[in-house]
C-alpha cells in the first residue's frame, strides 16, 4: 500500500510555484522510529483520502529542539528553532499539522518569540476538522463497541488544554470510551517527557510507564489510544511489562481511524 502514498515535499511545491494548504511536520519519531513511522503513514493515508493539499519538509526538517530545551540546553534549542524558522518562513508556511504533541507545543508556543508565527494543529484536531467539514467520513467498522481508553499526552492536554478532539474521534468510531482513574487535566505522564525518553530513570520503586499502564489495565480496555509517539512507545513497553500484549493493543488515533476506513 505504501507505494500509493502521495507525500509531496515543500521543495516540489516551490518548484511548481504552488503553496499547500498545510505543512505536515513529521517530527523525529515519526521519521525514524519504526512504530511511529506506521502512525505517520496512517495519517498520510487519511490526508490522501481527504484530498488534503499538504506537503512535508522531508530532508529539510530538523528536530524542533524540544528535548534539548527540556534537558536545559537553551542554546541548542534556540539554534534548532532559529534554523527551522528560517526554513519555514522561507517557504511562507502559514499552517502546520503534526502528530507529535512535543513538536506541536514547541512550534505553537515557543517559536513565536523567535520569529516563527504559524497556526499549529495536532493531528487529532486536524482530523476532527476534516470530519466536521465533511471532507472525511468514518464508520465505526472494526472498532464498534470496543473498549478504548485514551491516554492524554501531557504536552497536548495539560500543556495546551486539548482534551476533547481525540475523544471526539474515538466516539465517532462507535467505540466505548472508558476513562482511566487519572485523566484529562489530572492525566498521569507516560514518563517520557522532559527528555526522560533518552535516559534511564532515576532510582525509584517503579517505572512511570508501568504505573500509567496499570491505570489503563484497571479499566480493562481492548485498546489504549495514544496521541503521541513517545507515549505510544512508553505504553507499548508498559503493556509488555504487564504481560498484556495479547489482550491490549496500543494504537494512535490516526491508526484507529485509518484502520476503520480499511486504508
Amino acid at each position, binding site marked *: 500500500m*505504501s507505494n500509493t502514498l502521495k*507525500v509531496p*515535499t515543500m521543495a516540489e511545491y516551490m518548484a511548481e510555484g504552488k503553496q499547500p494548504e498545510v505543512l505536515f511536520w*513529521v517530527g*523525529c519519531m*515519526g*521519521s*525514524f522510529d519504526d512504530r511511529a*513511522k506506521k502512525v505517520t*503513514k496512517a495519517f498520510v493515508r487519511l490526508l490522501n483520502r481527504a484530498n488534503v493539499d499538504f506537503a512535508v519538509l522531508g*530532508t529539510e*526538517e*530538523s*528536530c524542533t529542539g524540544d*528535548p*534539548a530545551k*527540556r*534537558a*536545559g*540546553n*537553551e*542554546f*541548542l534549542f*534556540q*539554534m*534548532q*528553532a*532559529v*534554523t527551522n524558522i528560517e526554513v519555514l518562513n522561507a517557504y511562507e508556511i502559514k499552517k502546520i499539522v503534526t502528530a507529535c504533541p512535543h513538536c506541536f*507545543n514547541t512550534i505553537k*508556543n*515557543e517559536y513565536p*518569540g*523567535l520569529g516563527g508565527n504559524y497556526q499549529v494543529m495536532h493531528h487529532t484536531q486536524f482530523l476532527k476538522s476534516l470530519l466536521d467539514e465533511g471532507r472525511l467520513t468514518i464508520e465505526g467498522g472494526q472498532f464498534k463497541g470496543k473498549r478504548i481508553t485514551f491516554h492524554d499526552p*501531557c504536552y497536548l492536554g*495539560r*500543556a*495546551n*488544554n486539548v482534551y476533547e478532539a481525540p475523544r471526539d474521534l474515538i466516539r465517532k468510531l462507535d467505540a466505548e470510551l472508558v476513562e482511566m482513574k487519572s485523566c484529562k*487535566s*489530572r492525566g*498521569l*505522564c507516560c*514518563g517520557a*517527557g*522532559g527528555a*526522560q*525518553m*533518552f*535516559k*534511564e*530513570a*532515576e*532510582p*525509584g*520503586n*517503579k517505572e*512511570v510507564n508501568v*504505573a*500509567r499502564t496499570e491505570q489503563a489495565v484497571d479499566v480493562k480496555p481492548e485498546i489504549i489510544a495514544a496521541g503521541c509517539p513517545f507515549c505510544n512507545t512508553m505504553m507499548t513497553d508498559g503493556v509488555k511489562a504487564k504481560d498484556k500484549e495479547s489482550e491490549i493493543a496500543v494504537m494512535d488515533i490516526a491508526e484507529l481511524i485509518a484502520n476503520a476506513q480499511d486504508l
Partner: protein
Amino acid sequence: MNYIPNILFAIALIVGIGYFAKNVKKLIRNIKLGHDVDVSDNTSQRWKNMAMIALGQSKMVKRPIAGFLHIIVYVGFIIINIEVLEIIIDGLAGTHRIFSGIGPLYGVLIGAFEVLALLVFVSVIIFWLRRNAIKIKRFWSKEMTAWPKNDANYILYIEMALMLLFLVMNATDLKFQAMNNGNVISQFIAPLFSGLSEGTIHIIERSAWWMHILGILGFLNYLYFSKHLHILLAFPNTYYGKVKPKGELDNLASVTAEVKLMMDPNVDPFAAQPESTEAPAKFGASDVQDLNWVQLLNAYTCTECGRCTSECPANQTGKKLSPRKIMMDTRDRLEEVGKNIDANGGTFKEDGKQLLDDYITREELWACTTCNACTEACPVSIDPLSIIMDMRRYLVMEQSAAPMELNNMMTNVENNGAPWPYNQMDRLNWKNE
C-alpha cells in the same frame, strides 16, 4: 477613670502590628533579591485568575473534602475578622461591644460569627485528624518532618484556640447572654459557667477577650515564620502566576542575543569584542538570586499542602523528586540568604553554600518529566517546574553536567538534527518503506 487597659491595649496593638510590618518589609526585600520579570501583560486574565483561584478557591475544590473544609475555614476567618474591628475599638476606647447599639442586626452578625466559629473549630479538628490520625500520605513524606510537621499542627492548635476563646468570651459575657440575641452557640456553653460567681465569670470573660486579641496578634506575627503566609500571599501569587500555556517555557533572552549573532552572516567574526562593563549573564540558576522574584514569591506562598507532590509521576514511582520540597528548599535558602544580609549590614557575604547541591540535589532535578502535573495541582498557581528548568539550564549551560545519555542525545540533535544518530538525509525514507 482607669486608662491602664486602654494603654496596654494600644501598646499591644502597636507592637503586634509594628513587628509584623517589620517582617513584611524583610519579606519584600527577600523577594526582590530575585531577577526582575515582566508581569505587565494580560492584566485582565491576571485579575480573573486571582478572583477565581484565590478568592473563589476554584482549585481547592478539585479535591472535594479538603476543599470544602478549607472553604469553611477561609470564609470563617475572613468574616470573623469583622469582629476584630469591634474588639479593637472597644480596646482602645474602653467601650464594651460598641456595635451592639446597631440593634437586631448585631445579633445576626454575632450569631453568624458563632456558627462559623463552631464550623471552623470542627473543620480544623478534621484537618488535624487527617494529618495525625488518618495519616494521609502526602503529610508524611520525607520533607514533612521536624519543623514543617510541627508548624502545620501549631497552626491548627492556634486556630482551635482562637475559635474556642471567641465562643467562651461570648458565653461568659453576662450582658450579651442576657440580650439573648446572637448567642446561638454560646448559649449552650454558658451553663458550664453557671455555678461560678459573677465576678469570676467576668474575669474569665476578660481573660478570654484579651487572649483572643493577643492570640490574633500573635498569629499574625507567626505567619512570617510559618508556611501559613499563603493566607496573604495567595492573592498576589495567583495574580502574578503563569498566564501562558503550561507547556510554554520562556526563551532565554540572553541566549537569543548570542544565537542571533551566530546566525547573522554580516557579523565580522574577527572583530574586537566591545568592552563590556557588565559581568556576562549567568545561564540558569544555581542559587536563589538567579531565580526571578515571582519564583521567590512562589516559595513564600507555598503552604506545603503537597498536592503537587502527590500528583508528581516521579514522586509516585519512588523517585527523590518532590515539587513541594523544591519550593520549601527555595524558601529555606532564601531565608538563609536574607539572614546573611541582615547580619552583614545589608550586603550578602559569600557563605559557600547555594540552592543547588546544598538544598536541591541533581538527582531530584533530573527526575522531572516536565509533565506539569504539579503546576496543575497547585491551588495557588505555584510553578515548581520553572525552578527545576532554570536549575537544569545552569547544570547544562554553565557546568556541562547533563547525564551522559542526554549529552549523547544533544550531540545527535546538534550533528544530525534528530535525537538519534540517523542521517538527516534519511528523514523521508519512511515514504518508500
